[in-house]
């Protein structure tokens, strides 16, 4: 008896790629219609299809067709797979995004089809982060189908069927497609069957053969199906049958055979995709952070006031983000016009975040007792708004969305004469150049310290107020020529290159810089296509940007700013190196005009020491990789460590690094032709993915010890999810001037999200994760929910808790217990 070949009829659908989403939507409708027709025509034929966003289109536009599909799902003729909104890129979305991919999708499947997907399915995604098994398990999926990287790109990974483990202990039974996801035509299918038969014989287990026209949809053709049906009627082909991934896994799980296991990420395919089209990356990072923060504040406000929970609005926003994490979108390899749509969709999502966050913060602020006796008497018609009230300080409430205390600089858009905290202590501030040209031209930056998921009130006297004499807090900031320092670090700039020649970490007193640092490097990108197919290193340097100017533009108590401008042909990069009081990082605010076709701009930092190891944040964890120059995907930070010292680069919008020896480089810009597939470039006036003006930030963090033990996770999170300062009015209230709503007592456990359950029960949902790769027990105290509980965590484990009105807690998963 031969091991079975499971024929998986499918149509790979790219909703955006070489076309815009409107065409993708049409392609979905046509493909679904066709698949329904084939099911009706051919007895035994089964169609497999992923991605909730496609089903939702069909439901909205062609409800009759959708109804037919529902019936076929019940009969097992149509098999939905992948409980995610799309087949996303699997390197750049953060852990919360993967949670939302599952949440909204599996709940949709559950509502419409009465079941959730048991099989994850990303047959085209360009690489697989090491935490996917946990994301799949938490979304209700224990089995997984993937294809990339292929055998030529990664020879070490197991083939066919294998166990894939993530560091938290989750695992998925994984099938790596050995041929392609869309075999079509008699010869192609015939060849694929031969390959599968051989593998089934050698492995001792069944195999899946994916057939059907794909990419732009289509699905199995009549010819394909009839060929297969005829074949199945022939003697000797009893082992071939129409099937689905679910049936394949079910059948093989009951088999008595052993398969290999794999406990690492699966890279690399399309190494250029972590950097191409910076716009979509920036939008993704910003939207992820903003939605998470805004929903936390909405949840707090809804809990303490009559503000309704905006669960549906956030769902709508997240669905846009999830859609735009589709691999060909987030990877930056679609056509130029598609990114207009992406910008609009992400703008829609972020507008929801902005509106809900603002409503929530003002609602919370309304409960804070900011009243000062006598304040109402002083407001005259000439002092209509509080910022001009010169007799009293103006209350500004600073909100911290993270689950630990954060001390960082915040900005308000007026100059100040004095700033105090809610206990009356003076705090460091500085009037800094604003972005406007009218009025005073000055904003206030002050150093705020805000408790975990909470707020703190600060009092700002307007610059025109007579504040009399007061003792300013001491500042450790010093500036000596092009050398600047605070109590943590001392940084020296090179006058000739504009780069950093020295960073002393005052914790250990030693030098961290061992070579070229912050001198922007231009790398050739003429050979790789947009994806960089079959290219894994971007290492052909064609020049460095030349220093045009360097100057100290601010030197105050709260911060020092050194500004450099580098030029290269007609392009420039301006960098403001900002060292703030009490900051362990050197923040760099960048503005670039890039006009260099087919080039890459990289920002290097070079560490001293020997035997370097690079460490990168990946979704829900960090990972160590060799310093071999290969381009690597990462989320908010990358790090190189040697001999007990490390330099990390933190980014607010970039996802791509390389590390060669001791030099870690952040890829700032990768300027490709849009959707340049295999560099087939007929002469044309091309548009480029990353030309023009862009603004972004990165930071350099010198630290002792291993990256994971340096606090980088918290610092990078605070760099991306920043404190928000809201000027408020004077009013009486029931809440104190400083408050924390949820706190966690262990540094390595972080709050991911705080929301309300999707089932409308009013139960709260909080999601928490371990960040340091260590088993931990922690206390989670949620006074706002009248709850507090202990929990154990495995390394990098994510836990989702549902808390009822009485404060009793159940542990669920990404699906919030709604589908139980």
């Amino acid at each position, binding site marked *: 008896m031969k091991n079975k070949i499971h024929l998986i009829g499918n149509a790979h659908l790219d909703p955006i790629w070489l076309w815009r989403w409107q065409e993708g939507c049409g392609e979905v409708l046509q493909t679904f219609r066709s698949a329904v027709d084939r099911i009706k025509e051919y007895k035994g034929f089964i169609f497999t299809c992923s991605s909730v966003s496609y089903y939702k289109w069909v439901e909205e536009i062609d409800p009759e067709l959708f109804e037919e599909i529902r019936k076929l799902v019940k009969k097992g003729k149509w098999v939905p797979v992948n409980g995610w909104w799309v087949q996303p890129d699997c390197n750049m979305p953060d852990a919360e995004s993967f949670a939302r991919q599952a949440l909204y999708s599996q709940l949709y499947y559950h509502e419409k089809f009465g079941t959730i997907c048991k099989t994850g399915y990303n047959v085209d995604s360009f690489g697989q982060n090491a935490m996917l098994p946990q994301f799949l398990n938490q979304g209700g999926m*224990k*089995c997984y189908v993937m294809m990339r990287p292929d055998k030529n790109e990664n020879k070490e990974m197991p083939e066919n069927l294998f*166990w894939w483990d993530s560091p938290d*202990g989750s*695992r998925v*039974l994984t099938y790596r497609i050995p041929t392609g996801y869309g075999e079509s035509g008699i010869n192609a299918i015939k060849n694929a069957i031969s390959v599968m038969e051989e593998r089934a014989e050698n492995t001792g287990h069944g195999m899946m053969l994916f057939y059907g026209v794909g990419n732009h949809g289509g699905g199995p053709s009549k010819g394909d199906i009839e060929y297969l049906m005829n074949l199945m009627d022939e003697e000797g082909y009893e082992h071939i049958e129409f099937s689905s991934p679910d049936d394949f*896994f*079910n059948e093989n*799980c*009951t088999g*008595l055979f*052993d*398969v290999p*296991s794999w406990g690492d990420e699966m890279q690399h395919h399309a190494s250029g995709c972590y950097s191409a089209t910076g716009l979509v990356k920036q939008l993704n990072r910003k939207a992820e952070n903003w939605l998470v923060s805004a929903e936390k504040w909405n949840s707090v406000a809804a809990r303490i006031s009559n503000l309704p929970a905006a669960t549906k609005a956030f769902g709508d926003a997240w669905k846009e983000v999830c859609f735009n994490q589709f691999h060909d979108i987030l990877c930056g390899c679609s056509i130029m016009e598609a990114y207009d749509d992406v910008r609009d969709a992400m703008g829609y999502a972020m507008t929801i975040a902005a509106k809900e966050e603002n409503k929530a913060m003002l609602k919370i602020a309304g409960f804070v007792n900011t009243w000062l006796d006598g304040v109402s008497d002083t407001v005259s018609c000439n002092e209509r708004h509080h910022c001009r009230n010169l007799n009293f300080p103006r209350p500004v409430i600073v909100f911290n969305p993270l689950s630990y205390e954060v001390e960082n600089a915040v900005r308000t858009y007026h100059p100040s004469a004095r700033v105090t905290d809610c206990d009356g202590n003076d705090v460091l501030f500085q009037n800094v150049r604003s972005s406007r040209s009218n009025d005073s031209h000055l904003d206030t930056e002050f150093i705020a310290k805000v408790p975990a998921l909470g707020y703190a009130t600060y009092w700002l006297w307007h610059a025109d107020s007579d504040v009399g004499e007061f003792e300013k807090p001491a500042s450790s900031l010093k500036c000596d020529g092009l050398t600047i320092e605070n109590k943590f670090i001392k940084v020296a700039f090179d006058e000739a290159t504009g780069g950093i020649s020295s960073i002393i970490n005052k914790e250990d007193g030693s030098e961290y810089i061992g070579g070229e640092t912050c001198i922007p490097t231009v790398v050739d990108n003429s050979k790789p296509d947009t994806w960089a197919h079959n290219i894994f290193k971007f290492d052909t340097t064609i020049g460095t940007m030349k220093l045009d100017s360097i100057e100290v533009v601010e030197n105050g108590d709260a911060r020092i700013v050194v500004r450099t401008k580098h030029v290269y042909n007609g392009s420039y990069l301006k960098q403001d190196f900002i060292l703030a009081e009490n900051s362990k990082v050197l923040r760099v605010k960048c503005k670039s005009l890039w006009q260099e076709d087919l080039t890459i701009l990289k920002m290097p930092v070079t560490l001293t020491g020997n035997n370097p190891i690079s460490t990168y944040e990946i979704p829900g964890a960090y990972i160590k990789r060799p310093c071999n120059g290969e381009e690597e995907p990462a989320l908010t930070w990358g790090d190189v460590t040697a001999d007990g010292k490390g330099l990390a680069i933190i980014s607010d919008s970039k996802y791509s690094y390389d590390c060669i020896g001791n030099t870690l480089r952040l890829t700032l810009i990768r300027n490709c032709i849009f959707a340049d597939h295999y560099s087939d470039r007929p002469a044309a006036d091309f548009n480029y993915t990353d030309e023009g003006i862009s603004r972004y930030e990165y930071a350099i963090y010198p630290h002792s010890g291993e990256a994971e033990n340096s606090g980088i996770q918290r610092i990078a999170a605070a760099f991306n999810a920043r404190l928000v300062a809201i000027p408020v009015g004077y009013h009486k209230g029931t809440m104190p001037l400083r408050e924390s709503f949820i706190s966690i*007592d262990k540094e390595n456990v972080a709050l991911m999200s705080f929301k309300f359950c999707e089932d409308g029960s009013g139960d709260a949902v909080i999601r928490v994760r371990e960040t340091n790769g260590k*088993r931990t*027990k922690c*206390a*989670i*105290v949620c*006074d706002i929910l*009248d*709850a*507090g*509980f*202990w*929990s*154990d965590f*495995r390394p990098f484990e994510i*836990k989702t*808790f549902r808390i009822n009105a*009485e*404060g*009793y*807690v*159940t*542990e*669920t998963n990404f699906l919030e217990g709604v589908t*139980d």
Partner: protein
Amino acid sequence: MPYKLKDHICRFCKMFALDDAAVPKALFEAEAVKPDLKGFPYPLPSKKSDYSCSVKIGNIEWFGASNGLTRYDSEAERYEDIVMYFSAPRDLLDNNIKALLPEGENLWVLTDTGVTFIEMRMVGAEEKADILRAESEKYVDRRGMKSQKHLREGRNLDSILPYGHSDNDGCFTATYAMGELFRYAVYKKEKGAEHPDTLLARKYALRSTEATLLLAHITGRGDGFVARTYLCPDEPVPDDGIFFRKNGDTAVCLETTCSKEWDCVGAEIYCGAPIPERLSKLYTDLGYSHDGIVYKADTSSDEITTHFLFFKFVHDILGAEDPELDKIVIDTCKGLMNHIIDNGYILRDFTGKATSWAKWNEEYFVTDYGYVDACLNSSEVLMYHLVTMDITGEKGKWLESYEHLINDRHYDDYAAKHFDRLFQCSIAGEFEFTEDIMYGDHMLACLSYFGLGILEKDPVRLEKYRNGFRSWRTSLEREHNPGYDLPFKIACPDDEIDFEALATWFYRTNASRLAAGVSLTSRHDVAVKTLQAGNKEISVLLPPDERFISKYDRNPVALVNEDSGGITCVESAYVYGYAYWMGRYYGFFE
């Protein structure tokens, strides 16, 4: 460097009736001071609004609620000790706290149905071992066997029932014996052979050792077959398996539900093989003869695995000083090993077939059950071979069989596949893999890989066995059970274990094995998780004194109490003694 286990607070709770004269009247008049818990920095076992009374004794605050008592020590050295929970029936008669009254450092607690006096006493880890051993020797012992005993009256140890057996008497008694053997070896080295503590340790070690060895001879079959347990003629025969009553040279199968199902009531089997007198004295000294003794058959691999590792430590620790005993051990070991090899790697029951759960043969490994069991069972039987070679000093048949299992049957390759196969089954069965764990198998895995880890010298094979142990860590690690973690560290010395978590286990284990349960379901500070197949767990491993008391064979994060009888059961102290004295014997603890 050994880890220093310090003296640590231990809870002692004494219950009184409401009208007991010992209860101070002031308790009934104590003012209920509702605590102000706003901003309390830690999770609390009760809802804040449910706390109705409080007292402060030094730095310690006690809060009473309708579902139990909370102790708060803001200056506690250990994280787990900051907030402690006391609940019924372990610590209180019921959970509705009415009033609290300090008495010195101690506390009187008034609840609906009675009064509890709570004393938090400093107890050393070794002192706790002494207390627990004394309890087991006095109340649990049944002719040297140490499993558990039941009480006529709840909480009243003096109302102990004289009889009562366990399905795995041999397994639990052998583990108890190993703990006492380790203790004896430690005392002998540290205090000298003639020290009273050493002599006492030897006495107890010998008693449980002889009781364990007796089970390998009690059947009188003479073929190495080990009984699960045995009963004297005046003990009631429970209806939970296959039992034979001995009479002369013939034993007859008794009528039970199981024997009727198997259609073997009245089946006869030879039982005339001699029993070493030193062992049979355990019942003959009580006035019983061989006739009328009832033994339990259908023995499982649990018994056999524990016996083999036990053989190793009896031989190592007592062999040289007690040649008679050593000969019995070696002969018993050889007899059992011969039985297994000669019967094609099964334990052959009276039916001529394998018992239900003692199969180490390849035929079993390709069945649905055996497919998952193969990884553990193959390692078990390899361990048996290494122990036999080690204590007999012989190779011959044992080595030939060992090499056969490895070279021809590749038994060493099964070890690391445990988790894969368990997980595979969980997908097929649509449950979480933790829901399919036989928690008793945890101990068997630890015993097997412990033995393999200390006895295998071939580096390639040793690494395979270590990988097998590591595979089991997937489910073992979360328990932080020193009885599992220390053997792991011994077998895999380069791997890390969490000694702080183990210290918590020793510190927070109650000084009694009365199996009174705890109130978990109403706790406000633990999250409950419903697994795929419906089983419920909590999201945190609580200290042992806040979870149910059991042997090593239960899920310690199960939501419901999985003890063996609550307030009417007292468990063997092997759980503590085996782990503690192993730690001392191997130099992990001071």
